């Protein structure tokens, strides 16, 4: 562009030409952006905005045909949330899923990454591929498999326990055990991702640090505590943010494994939003709940990125 301009600059007629070139470039820019933007705005940006508006209305099944007939009811939906024991239970369940899930996901991912990086010299690729398999698999399918494995009457887990003469429990019928199994499934399916990202982080640690430590007579645990962990801090914080956001939206695992039961103890917020919005058709109320979840996600992300910035 600039080359062209300097070439033709002396001629007085060049200016309109350059101007036309500028206009054409702008037009082309918008033309190239248009297909993406059209779909993106109509089916993503607008619904996000509409959700905020919906959350202040009493929108329900009757308004589906004529969306603008819904009445504004101010903050009523949000006030109702705070007194809805089902929502509070869902919030508690989500918190348990997120806290235990995130901590375990990172711990197992890090352990696997360290073992693959420095513990062994052969078959690395086999383990890396094997550990990553669940990440690419459908959650619905693996949740169905897990439900089968933990079936009280003919599941493998209780079958193995029986060999040792132990009568296995009804895993998914017990609220505490069901929560634990769903957390385990979340970690089982996702830690491969954390492992890959930790592996990349580990490979960025200079080897001299370990050599220096070895000369000083440090053992493996001291090496891990004083070199590996501090050097992985940025990776760890980033993974914490990503995992937290992901687990705050957990849906498929409890939907397939327990349908939220027993006693709604395994029903997270996303599932309660789904039920309120699409089973009971309380779309206004569901939107208020979804927006609350969104605000929490935004806040958690912001806090964690603050930490990330101040610590590194």
């Amino acid at each position, binding site marked *: 562009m600039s*080359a062209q301009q300097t070439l033709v600059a002396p001629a007085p007629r060049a200016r309109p030409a350059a101007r036309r070139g500028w206009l*054409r*470039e*702008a*037009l082309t820019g918008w033309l*190239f*952006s248009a297909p*993406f*933007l059209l779909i*993106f705005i*109509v*089916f*993503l940006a607008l*619904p*996000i905005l*509409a*959700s905020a508006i*919906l959350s202040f209305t009493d929108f329900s099944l009757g308004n589906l045909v004529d*969306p603008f007939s819904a009445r504004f009811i101010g903050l009523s939906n949000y006030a109702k949330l705070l007194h809805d024991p089902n929502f509070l239970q869902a919030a508690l369940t989500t918190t348990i899923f997120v806290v235990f899930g995130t901590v375990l996901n990172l711990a197992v991912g890090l352990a696997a990454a360290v*073992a693959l990086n420095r*513990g*062994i*010299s052969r078959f690395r*690729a086999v*383990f890396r591929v*094997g*550990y990553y*398999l669940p990440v*690419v*698999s*459908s959650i*619905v*399918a693996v949740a*169905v*498999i*897990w439900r*089968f*494995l933990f079936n009280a009457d*003919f599941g*493998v887990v209780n*079958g*193995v326990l029986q*060999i040792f003469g132990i009568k296995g429990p009804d895993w998914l019928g017990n609220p505490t055990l069901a929560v634990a199994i769903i957390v385990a499934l979340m970690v089982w399916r996702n830690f491969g991702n954390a492992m890959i990202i930790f592996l990349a982080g580990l490979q960025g640690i200079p080897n001299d640090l370990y050599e220096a430590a070895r000369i000083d007579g440090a053992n493996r645990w001291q090496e891990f505590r004083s070199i590996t962990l501090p050097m992985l801090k940025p990776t760890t914080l980033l993974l914490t943010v990503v995992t937290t*956001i992901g687990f705050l*939206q957990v*849906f*498929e695992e409890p*939907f397939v494994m327990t*349908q939220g039961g027993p006693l709604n103890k395994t029903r997270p*917020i*996303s599932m309660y939003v*789904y039920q309120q*919005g*699409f089973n009971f058709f309380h779309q206004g109320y569901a939107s208020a709940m*979804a*927006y609350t*979840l*969104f605000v929490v*996600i935004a806040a958690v*992300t912001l806090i964690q990125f603050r930490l990330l910035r101040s610590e590194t």
Partner: protein
Amino acid sequence: MSVAAPVRTAIPVVTQATPEQRPSRGGRRARNSLWVYVALLIGLVLLVGPFLWMVASSVKTPAELHHVPPTWIPQTFTLDNYTTIFTKLNFPQYFVNSVIVAAVVVGSNLLFCSMIGYALAKLRFRGKSAVFLLVLATIMVPQTVYLVPLFVLMSNLGLVNSYAGLILPFAAQAFGVFLMRQFIQGIPDELLEAARMDGAGEFTVFRKVVLPLLGAPLATLGILTFLGSWNNFLWPLIIATSDQMFTLPVAVATFSIGQNTADYGLLMAGSVVLIAPVLLIFLLLQRFVQQGIATTGLKG
């Protein structure tokens, strides 16, 4: 170990000292790594085991499926479960639905994301930064937030229970824009200028110069979008209201919590159909990924 020539001091001493130390150190290492192998192997069994169990169970008879204690290797091999889901149940339809949705979602993202990526990376126009900010702002918004209004929109457009309803919300995804923009920024301007000098219009520049250079990022975007679409569950569950429009995950989930709840033979066969294509693609591309690393390693 015996120092033959005292003249060769420093270097031989060092090289001799190391082999002397190595047996003890190496022994400790070897024992340590044996434990690491054992731990990793147990992990591998726990991670791959359920998949093998799924495959084994899908070829068992109903009687054997409910046998206590469970059998590891099928005693009587049968394909009845597969025959049933493909002839008595509607699995051919679900499979085709999943393929159609994934194909269109992948295709539209490859095309639209590389186009807008080109505009954002290489063209100057007013409102460009606003466009980029808009895309950036939505990347963190969880799906749960816009499901309800999206459904209201779809029902007013008459797109509930249609391919368009399944596809459109995923036809233009933000992360593809970042990926393509990032990569296209790395293409030297001189290359584009040269084509423009030869009288090529922007569309020709894009098609003949930019697109041929986008092989690697397009492959990445294609794989990620395919995985996302194939495994996508919540939106298809909402928008596909009749059996005819179910995708595979919706079908498997619906059967698993419906009246077929105890028929694990059918459910495992369904899960195999749902998981197999993705695993196949992943395993094939994993080889390419490793080859890629090996080649760059040789070159670098």
